[in-house]
């Protein structure tokens, strides 16, 4: 048992494989068909991913607070745990204990489901992210397209929240947010298509496999695509400088105005889950995913992704917010043409050199 | 329970289509009517993909047609909703029964 732990850190994928096989053996022992076995394995994998996501969020919230604090020459949370490391847990416990207020005139079923939908959509993205060699819940052959389509549910969640709260700030916030997300989704999808044109596949694992070495990273072939993706993705998850939907100074807190307690926590969680997943997708598409020397694959993946997250946080605490018309104008007048140009250049490159 | 075959999918598609017809006949709200139309489009898509899967599995014709249909539905919804907004500016409402300066 003691020998298992260091091995598991180094070769997590083998460990996972072993556990999965063990489960399969047990299930087959009960007498279930192969389809059922796969289904149950997938469900367990999903649960594991959800647990992982929870841990990631706990860490990210703390990290963001520390980074923002240090950017602003403060210390940030210091009391609970080492450098406040356990602060998030304390906060989470507090949030869960808070009274879950439902205002009187809300559209109840919609009000109830909006945060759940947003949260589920955020988690569902993790299904096709390759966390390491063999560490993927399900390698769909439409992987990246699946991610694009699942994220659209986030918008629905925002709109549901904005509408059902029966509050003009919430409604405006929901509107703005939805308009923003669907505007930036177009250049984002186009930027991703640039990579897909090279890879000739939509499968995330395949995309990673094609970036064997440092020089094969797609960022070298898709610099414009990468920049467009990063900007659009930042806007997608409503972070500064694109955080208009929640602009506290104008809209109170946008679509989350009327939410409290557990439901608010879900929106909060979803936001950080999205932050991590856009960085993870960038890692997979542009930085070779889990490929890297010496270290175990999952560790490479985490390092690259967390660097990405750090950059996003850095940007957030450095730049001011855009105006709403600048926001739309930027998406349609600059980002979209840039994405198209990238697509055309990519096509030419492939036609000429490949 | 026999295994699920073409006829099951077609039956589902027929049910959805008829629900769409019902909605189109009874809805008062213009957007409600458009939603019913979307249901009908989807019924057709289910039928197309099911036929494609079971009748010509080696070709993907059904899927091709369905993909085009989705795009057509998007275009149509865009124009329709733009006109709905225009109507709203005129009538302050989008109740199809009240939109009757001309005899329907």
């Amino acid at each position, binding site marked *: 048992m003691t020998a298992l732990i260091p091995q598991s850190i180094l070769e997590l994928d083998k460990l996972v494989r072993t556990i999965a096989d063990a489960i399969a053996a047990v299930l087959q022992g009960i007498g279930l068909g192969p389809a059922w076995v796969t289904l149950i394995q997938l469900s367990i994998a999903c649960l594991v991913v959800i647990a992982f996501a929870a841990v990631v969020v706990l860490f990210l919230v703390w990290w963001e607070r520390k980074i923002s604090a240090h950017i602003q020459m403060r210390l940030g949370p210091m009391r609970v745990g080492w450098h406040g490391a356990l602060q998030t847990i304390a906060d989470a416990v507090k949030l869960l204990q808070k009274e879950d207020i439902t205002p009187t005139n809300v559209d109840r079923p919609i009000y109830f489901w909006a945060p759940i939908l947003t949260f589920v959509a955020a988690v569902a993205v993790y299904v096709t992210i390759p966390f390491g060699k063999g560490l993927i819940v399900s390698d769909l052959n439409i992987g990246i397209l699946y991610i694009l389509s699942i994220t659209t549910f986030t918008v629905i969640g925002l709109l549901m929240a904005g509408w059902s709260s029966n509050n003009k700030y919430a409604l405006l916030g929901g509107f703005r947010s939805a308009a923003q997300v669907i505007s930036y989704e177009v250049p984002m999808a186009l930027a991703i298509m640039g990579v897909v044109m090279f890879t000739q596949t939509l499968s995330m694992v395949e995309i990673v496999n094609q970036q064997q070495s440092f020089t094969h990273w797609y960022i070298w072939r898709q610099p414009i695509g990468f920049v467009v993706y990063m900007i659009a993705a930042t806007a997608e998850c409503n972070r500064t400088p694109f955080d208009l939907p929640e602009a506290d100074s104008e809209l109170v807190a946008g679509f989350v105005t009327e939410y409290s307690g557990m439901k608010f926590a879900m929106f909060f969680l979803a936001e950080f889950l999205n932050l991590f997943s856009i960085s993870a997708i960038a890692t997979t598409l542009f930085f070779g995913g889990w490929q890297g020397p010496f270290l175990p694959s999952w560790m490479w993946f985490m390092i690259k992704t967390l660097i990405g997250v750090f950059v996003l946080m850095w940007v957030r605490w450095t730049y001011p917010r855009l105006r709403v018309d600048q926001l739309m104008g930027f998406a349609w007048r600059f980002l979209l043409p840039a994405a198209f140009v990238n697509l055309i250049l990519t096509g030419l490159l492939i036609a000429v050199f490949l | 329970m026999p295994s699920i075959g073409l006829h099951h999918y077609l039956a589902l598609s027929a049910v959805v289509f008829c629900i769409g017809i019902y909605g*189109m006949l009874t809805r008062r709200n213009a957007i409600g009517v458009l939603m019913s139309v979307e249901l009908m489009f989807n019924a057709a*898509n289910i039928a197309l993909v099911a036929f494609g899967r079971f009748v*010509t599995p080696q070709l993907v014709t059904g899927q091709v047609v369905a993909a*085009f249909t989705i795009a*057509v539905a998007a275009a149509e919804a865009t124009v329709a909703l733009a*006109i709905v907004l*225009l109507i709203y500016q005129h009538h302050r409402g989008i109740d199809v029964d009240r939109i009757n300066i*001309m005899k329907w």
Partner: protein
Amino acid sequence: MSAFDLTKFYADWQIILPECFLFVWALFVLTLATLGKKDEPGRSGTFALWTILGALITAVWVGVTADGAAFGGTFVFDRLAVVFKEVVLGGVILTAISSIGTVGRLEVHRGEYYGLILLSAVGMLLMVSATELLTLYIAIELSTMGLYVLAAYHKGSRRSAEAGLKYVILGGISSAILLYGVAWLYGLTGTTNLAAIKDAVMNIYMSTGGFPPAMTLALIFVLAGFGFKLALAPFHMWAPDVYEGAPTPITAFLSVASKAAALAAFLRVFFVGLESAAMAWTQMIAALAALGMIVGNVTAIVQTNIKRMLAYSSVAQIGYILVGAVARDTWGATAISFYTMAYLFANMGAFICVIAFSERTGSDEIADYNGLAARSPVLAAFFALFLLSLTGIPPTAGFLAKYYVFLAAVNAGYLWLVIVGLLTSVIALYYYATVIRKMYFPSGETASTITVSKSLTLALVISTIGVLFFGVFPGPFVGWIQNAAQMLLAGK
């Protein structure tokens, strides 16, 4: 993947040159519309006109030089396509000329008006040539998409907005029904290519000795979808409202050009693709044609608005046209094509008269046509001529058209349908004559004189030439159309 075949590529794109031409220039017109600070009505209109003329010439040129199929048999440029493309483009030209006044009164988006007409025309041209259900379906959608917008183009007018809404909702429903029919046809035959569908239907018939009920149902769906597009009774309920509310040039456009294109598609689908299933649809078409003639003509009597009257009259006209379809032979196809051509000039002309009248008086009421002969003898004479052609009085093209259609039906043994047609023609004569009587024998005093703008006069003259020329010298054209119909039915 096979290597890129440049020769084939050129051959394919040469066939759809008219469409490409129209599309590229439509883009140009649209760009032009956004460039100028305020777009003058004349500029876009002139460009649009030259564009359509160019497309017309291109269509003739392609028809002469590159006869054949392209894109793996999904698109053909046969003689039927030439005939109907010229008809459609003729309708578009007349629409563009008669729109100049209407567009001049628009405050914004003048260029886009022409752009949308051109884009819609692209869809119509494609409809005429499509021999594959998917291509056909999307072409139909393209042609109606522009029309939805154009129907609602008078944004300040409630009626126009209402027309747009009704058109887009019913258009959506009809396209969903059509698509459902297409889906089932595809499922039952395993293909979307009309020629292949023909064979598959034949096989089904040979092997089972009949048509499975699902095939009949699919036919009904397809027929209903086309019925909506053609404003064929009982699927015509959108037509009067849309006709009344839409800007009048657009009314003319969608009552003529879009119907002509839909008829060409109808011919291809029913005379070619579903030819083997003729037994299943002939009776249905006969019933619908009779219903159309009766409902259209009877309802037209009580209308007080000229546009609504013409709407119901065109419901009846479609009924007459479909009388030709029961023959489902060369003669039937010829009669339908000829009728479409005659209908183009007569109906278009009638609508242009309505435009000319309402431009000066702002009214579409039949009562206001009282004493038009005194106010503007020329306009009244034109209008009377077009109405007579719609009724089917010699020597107009309308007479010959009706004659051919009825002849085809008699040959096919549908005497009762012809009798219905003749009886309803009498009703038609009654309400057309009422208008003519009002114009020439006014009751009460008449108002000031009416002048007709130059562009509208040009359009009226073109229409008149069409109505009279095809009524007096039909010979060469009928021969040409017959040839086209033969080639269509022979599956060439």
